[in-house]
């Protein structure tokens, strides 16, 4: 039993389960998944489907955070990617042509990658604090998206493009499959190659990493580029899901949700250790939270309070200090493992720059 509760993902998973069960009380057939037109259909599937873009963005964010950075520009990249793709498709005579759609997707992802790389250069080469470096694109990026579309919402009518966000494959939503594939590939690359270890090292102690010969700059660049790419893919999904691109609203505030997902998943914002599985759980918790709001009919005015309470509860439960201080009375007093060793300074010596 203790082995289970000790697992770093135990608490987020628990909260996810509790949230889902909460829905069940309000709506007894919440867990029912039925077949409809050859697609699986049900609330759980919806959570996965609408959570897919967040999962992707949070995936990229996890890697960035692992290196001790943060990427605020993901929301803007989401909107730009959608804008680029939809603009290209809308200009085609046959919007259903697969080649045109593929080109549009490639262009959008290329642009997203470029924007990510720009962030990476700002952080790793010019040495600007990540929050500010990415704030620039966060502000300007949405302007660029609107510029691309001349401030209008572009509506397209392209079946192949629509597949990305609203299509189905093997009875499952394509978006979910794409997101899970990305997650699986990334997780595999991180753990099978040494990339994960090197990122954790850079995030854990940048100077020590330099002295063991890790070329942190290119790693950091890579990570921001991946984050851009993930955000771009999420942007395609979001715009494809509604067959239109909205420069102003697509991906608005998704950066906060993504960061939240990463932290709920147990990755510390200070960098170092990261958990991709945790991030997936975190993204699902957040999406389930929205769904719960709809299911329970929480009025829009109190939605945020509801959200605040849930977030606080998750994070408190996750905190060993909280558990030992509040529940400690009932068990033998033990030193919390994660809070351990206050003697060891967690940060490196920081010299005023």
């Amino acid at each position: 039993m203790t082995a289970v509760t000790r697992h770093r993902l135990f608490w987020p998973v628990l909260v996810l389960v509790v949230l889902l069960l909460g829905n069940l009380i309000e709506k007894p057939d919440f867990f029912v998944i039925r077949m409809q037109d050859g697609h699986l259909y049900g609330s759980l599937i919806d959570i996965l489907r609408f959570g897919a873009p967040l999962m992707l963005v949070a995936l990229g964010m996890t890697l960035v955070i692992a290196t001790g950075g943060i990427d605020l520009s993901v929301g803007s990249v989401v909107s730009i990617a959608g804008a680029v793709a939809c603009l290209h498709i809308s200009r085609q005579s046959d919007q259903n042509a697969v080649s045109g759609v593929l080109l549009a997707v490639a262009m959008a992802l290329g642009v997203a990658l470029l924007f990510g790389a720009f962030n990476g250069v700002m952080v790793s080469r010019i040495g600007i604090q990540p929050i500010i470096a990415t704030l620039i694109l966060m502000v300007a990026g949405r302007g660029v998206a609107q510029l691309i579309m001349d401030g209008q919402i572009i509506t397209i009518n392209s079946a192949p493009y629509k597949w990305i966000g609203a299509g189905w494959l093997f009875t499952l939503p394509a978006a979910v499959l794409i997101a899970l594939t990305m997650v699986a590939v990334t997780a595999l690359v991180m753990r099978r190659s040494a990339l994960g270890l090197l990122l954790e090292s850079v995030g854990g102690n940048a100077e020590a990493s330099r002295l063991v010969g890790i070329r942190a700059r290119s790693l950091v660049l890579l990570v921001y580029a991946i984050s851009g790419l993930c955000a771009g893919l999420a942007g395609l999904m979001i715009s494809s899901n509604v067959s239109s691109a909205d420069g102003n609203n697509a991906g608005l505030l998704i950066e906060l949700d993504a960061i939240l997902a990463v932290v709920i998943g147990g990755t510390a914002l200070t960098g170092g250790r990261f958990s991709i599985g945790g991030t997936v759980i975190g993204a699902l918790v957040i999406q389930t939270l929205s769904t719960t709001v709809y299911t329970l009919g929480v009025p829009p005015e109190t939605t945020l309070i509801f959200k605040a309470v849930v977030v606080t509860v998750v994070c408190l439960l996750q905190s060993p200090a909280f558990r030992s201080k509040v529940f400690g009375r009932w068990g033998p007093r033990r030193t919390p493992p994660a809070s351990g060793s206050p003697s060891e300074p967690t940060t490196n010596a920081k010299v005023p720059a």
Partner: protein
Amino acid sequence: GDGTRDDDGGAAGGDDKIVLGFAQVGAESGWRTANTKSIQDSAKAEGIELQFTDAQQKQENQIKSIRGFIQQKVDVIAFSPVVNTGWDPVLKEAKAAGIPVILTDRAVDSQDTSLYVTFIGSDFIVEGQRAADWLLKEYEGKNEQVNIVELQGSPGAAPAIDRKKGFGDAIAANPNFKIIASQTGEFTRAKGKEVMTAFLQSNPDIDVLYAHNDDMALGAIQAIEEAGKKPGTDIKIISIDGVKDAFQAMVDGKINVVVECNPLLGPQLMDLVKKVVAGETVEKRILTEEGVFTQDQAAAALPNRQY
């Protein structure tokens, strides 16, 4: 951005060209962009020099802009308030500087109506009422329960508050009409679709969808289709604004009725500006010309839609 960088000192000066300072809310929607375009185009057409600023949906930016206009001594200031309160101090400054102010699109809530010369724009409450009127007419004589779901705009936004109120008050008298779920779709297609999907999962029996704007309705339509129902038939859809896509959806039979909210008030505004500069008295409240469009009118109106 031209117009501001002129070299003849105080932009307005003795120059005979009228200078209009316009502080726009932002570029948050296609509707708003159409509004901006209309104002720019008609200013150019009328030979009025337009100084335009974009507040990015922030009241403080808009106040800064207005203060800047006062500083630059423009002839007339016009703006679409982000929110209806909080303008007294800066409008007093404008009044003290002798610059007339025209409100567009949204009203301000001030005891001192002398702070602005006129307000031109739609009445969001009336829009909500019109939406309800259509619904009441549609179900006239039938005595069955009508389950309505509502997609609200962003919390705190004036159109969301007023459209909800106008609609809600108008159907309140008839107990057959019941709003079974109401949630914010934040005025966007993506959220509209997401919320509608959840509504469809938890409410098997939806008769009517009332969306505070077209974008949410357009998103919701896709959710309804994915759930295997027919929008416009299985679920009747009422929407507000009247963007081109919504008219297209009406033509396709997916939206039943659109209450127009007209962003193209540029020509009317320029007219007013000229009158105000000329010293003519204008009415305190000018409504924009707006209609209610149903499916049978949609096909005819579609080619003329400009936004």
